[in-house]
Structure formats: C-alpha cells, structure tokens
C-alpha cells in the first residue's frame, strides 16, 4: 500500500452534501431501530424459520462467493492484461448484472437454466434438476454478485500497471509463475475487498432468487425472502430479521475492512 499522504484540506462546503448524503443512508437504518420490538427480539430472531433462513443465506452466499472468486479472478485478469477484438463489448456484457434489475436477472436465468430454458433439457437428461433447488439460489447469487468482484479487481490491476509482471517475465519467469508470485500477491487486498462486496451482494439477493429459485423453507428461502414473507403476517418479526441481516452485513464489511487495512 502507498504511504499515507498528508491530509489534504477539502473545501468546507463539501461537508454539507457529504453529511446530507450520509444522513440519508443512516437515518432509515436508525428509524428501523426505533421500531424493533426489543422484548421479543431474541425470540423473533431465533425462531426455526429465521435460523434456517440465516443458515441457508450464509451457506449459499459463501458458495456463491467461492464461485465468484473461481471465475471472477480469471475474468478480471484476462480483461485487464490482454487485448482482443470485442473486449469492450465483452466487458460491458459481463458487468451488465450490476445495472440489471434482479428480477430481470431471475427471468434471464429461468430462460437459460429453467426446465424449458435453453439448457434445461440438457441438465434434465443428466438427472440434474436445477429448478427450485439450493443450486438455483447459488446460481442467482453468483450471477448478480460476480461483476462486483470483476469490476473492483480489474480496476486494481489496471491502476497497478503491468511493469512488475513484465520485469518478472524478462527474468525468465513463466506466465503461471508470474501470476502466482507477482500478480496475485500484489492484488490480494483488491481480491479480498471484491470478495466481500460479492458476499454482501449475495447475502442481500432477493429478486433473482424469488423469480428463479422459488421460496421453500430450508431449500430456497434465504433471509431476504423470509423477511418479505414475514412482512405479510408479522411486522415485528420482519423488522427483527431485517436488523439481523443489517448486523450480519455490517459485521462482514467491518471485518473485511479491518483485515484489508492490516495487510
């Protein structure tokens, strides 16, 4: 990491919109706190439905983050370090889920991997049933979360520049050695923060999941889906679970930031 620069003076008026923006994000979260039924809170967040949903969310988000790393890191490196025809188009397309409404992502997945989708028959021939399974949840989460990792890692690779890798190559290191010994160690903080973003996005995933995977306790009903359902019958429970989700997300981001600044 670069040495910490001397603190720059920012124009004072900048604080007005900066504080307004922060309040806009923080106030709704604070407002939620005022509506929590604290007396029943422990009971509400430890109900079987809530526990199962939280566990499923953590499990699927972890696997989705793993898949994002497995495919997203190579994607980012290829996009940042090579040039090929149509690269800009490919980059725009793979980053599309960032701006796509999640419901649209769900519909797209449905028409690709659903039973009547492009590859649905192929999977069914192998005896693999994706529809309404935990696999479908993980696929939905990976689809919406992967671009977060790709975009942050590609940015880091570009701003780092290829000079260290070039030096390693002139010293006779093979491409795989350069990747393992030079490239990856240098962008490790970016990989970590990209993974955290992906995990957080996967944890909050709702639209694509409900459209593509359905909602069944223990199989496809993640915490956001449980909150949406509880809202119908029990507002207190929905608020308690929302707070639980916020706390888990905040913990993940906090821990990751701490480990990122430590490296």
């Amino acid at each position, binding site marked *: 990491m670069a040495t910490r620069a001397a603190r720059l003076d920012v124009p004072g008026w900048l604080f007005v919109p900066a504080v307004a923006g922060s309040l806009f994000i923080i106030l709704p979260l604070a407002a939620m706190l005022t509506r929590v039924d604290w007396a029943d809170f422990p009971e509400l967040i430890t109900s079987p439905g809530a526990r199962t949903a939280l566990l499923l969310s953590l499990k699927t988000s972890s696997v989705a983050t793993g898949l994002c790393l497995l495919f997203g890191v190579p994607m980012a490196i290829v996009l940042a370090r090579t040039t090929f025809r149509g690269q800009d188009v490919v980059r725009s397309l793979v980053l599309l889920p960032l701006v796509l409404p999640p419901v649209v992502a769900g519909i797209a997945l449905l028409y690709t991997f*659903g039973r*009547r989708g492009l590859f649905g028959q192929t999977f069914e021939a192998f005896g693999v049933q994706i529809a*309404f399974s935990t696999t479908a949840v993980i696929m939905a989460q990976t689809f919406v979360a992967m671009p977060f990792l790709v975009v942050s890692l590609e940015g880091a690779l570009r701003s780092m520049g290829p000079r260290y890798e070039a030096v390693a190559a002139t010293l006779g290191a093979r491409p795989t050695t350069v990747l393992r010994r030079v490239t990856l160690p240098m962008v490790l903080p970016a990989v970590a923060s990209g993974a955290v973003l992906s995990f957080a996005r996967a944890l909050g995933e709702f639209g694509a999941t409900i459209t593509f995977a*359905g*909602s069944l306790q223990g199989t*496809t*009903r993640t915490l956001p*889906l449980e909150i949406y359902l509880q*809202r119908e019958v029990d507002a207190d429970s929905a608020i308690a679970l929302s707070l639980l989700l916020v706390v888990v997300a905040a913990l993940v981001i906090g821990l990751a930031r701490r480990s990122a600044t430590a490296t």
Partner: protein
Amino acid sequence: MTPPRRYPAVIAALVAMAASGCANSANSPTAEITVFAAASLQKTFTQLGKQFEAANPGTSVVFNFGGSSDLVAQLQQGAPGDLFASADTVTMDKAVTDALIAGEPSVFATNSMEIAVPPGNPADVDSFAALADPDVTVVVCAPQVPCGAATVAIEENTGVTLSPVSEESSVTDVLGKVTSGEADAGIVYVTDVKAAGDTVETIEIPVAVNATNRYPIGVLAGSGSPELAEHFQDFVLGPQGQQVLADAGFGGP
C-alpha cells in the same frame, strides 16, 4: 469537463418539474376520492372507476393498489384514503380493529381457487389428488398469505397433503412459475387464471372442497368525502359493478 454553471440549470429544471407535478394534482376536479384496493382488483376497479367517473361528471376516483396487508400498514401509518377494498376478511378485520373503518364493511365479491397447469398439461394433472404425486412439481402460496391459507383449507377439505417445491409470497409468483413451465401445477385464484388467458390451462377444484375468499369493502374513518366514497361503494355493490366483477371471474357476495 462540464462547466459548473450548468448545475443550477439542472436544479431549476428539477424544481420546475416538481412544481408542475404539484400543480397537476391541485388542478383536480371538484370531488376526488382515493380508493385503497387489493392488487387482484386492479383490472376490475380501474374499469369501474372509469365507468363511475363517466356516470358522475366532476368526480375523480384515484386508486392505490397493493397487497391487502401492505395497504393496511400504509393506512395505520396515516396514509389518506376514502375507501378500502381488501382481498380477504382477515385483513379487513385488522383495519376494523384499528378503527380505520367507519361503520360495517360489506362483502362485494368472492374468489375461489383453481389448479393452473402449463399449456399441454405436461404432468397430466387431472384432479387435486393427483398433485400429491411426488413426480408432479407443485407450487403454492405460503400459508402466511391469503391464497396460501385457502390452499391449506383445500388440503384439509380433501385430505390430500401436498409437498410443494416452493411456497411463494404472492399468487403472481405462483402463476409465473406455471406459465414459464418451471412447475407442473400451481394453485391460484380463478380470476388470475382468467386474466392469464392462453398461457395456462386449468383444472377445476370441486365447489364442495374449494375454499372461498371473501372481498369486503368499507369507507375509511379518516375520509374527507365519505358521501362520495359511499356512493362508489354502492356502485361496486350495484348491478353494474357486479357485472364487471363477474366478467373477470369473481363470484357474487
């Protein structure tokens, strides 16, 4: 770089847009009522609103459609409205208990359940009992929402226990899984099937075991024009309103 000078122009444009938006709502006809209505009434009530406005010049009926429980939550938070039409009596009871309704609500329509299957009926579903077959992928509403409660009632009436692959939060999601062919069958309202047209086929559930949802309507206690609200309520309960509802597949009260 964009010269910073441009920003005031953008802000001015936004302010102008906001102001014209306000002006529009202020220009409304002499008498206006806002009707909070269940999402399943969107088509029929929009049509009834137009007919009512045509029959009563100078009036305007504005709708706020949404899930019945969402609407009650909005009313509890002080949203201004004149009339409330719910998709089930449980939700209306909630509104009555919270003193949101003036007087007694009246039931204006009923809706029962039907089995929806994708065109061609790939799993050869021919009855409710056939849905218990583990090879048939069935999608239902979660028991927490009215359409799911109705499904549970049918399971009790028939003694058939379903093992659905998904319990959706809304009937729209159930229908979506059927029209896309993801599910072999789904339990939805008769009116949804009617609105879905050719995209699904249906298998009826016998009246004896079917569950019926009753739709109540009531004038809101906070209404600014309770007379006009009552007038529209009578219109819904009257012959013209009942005809539009029947055409959409609703049963009589």
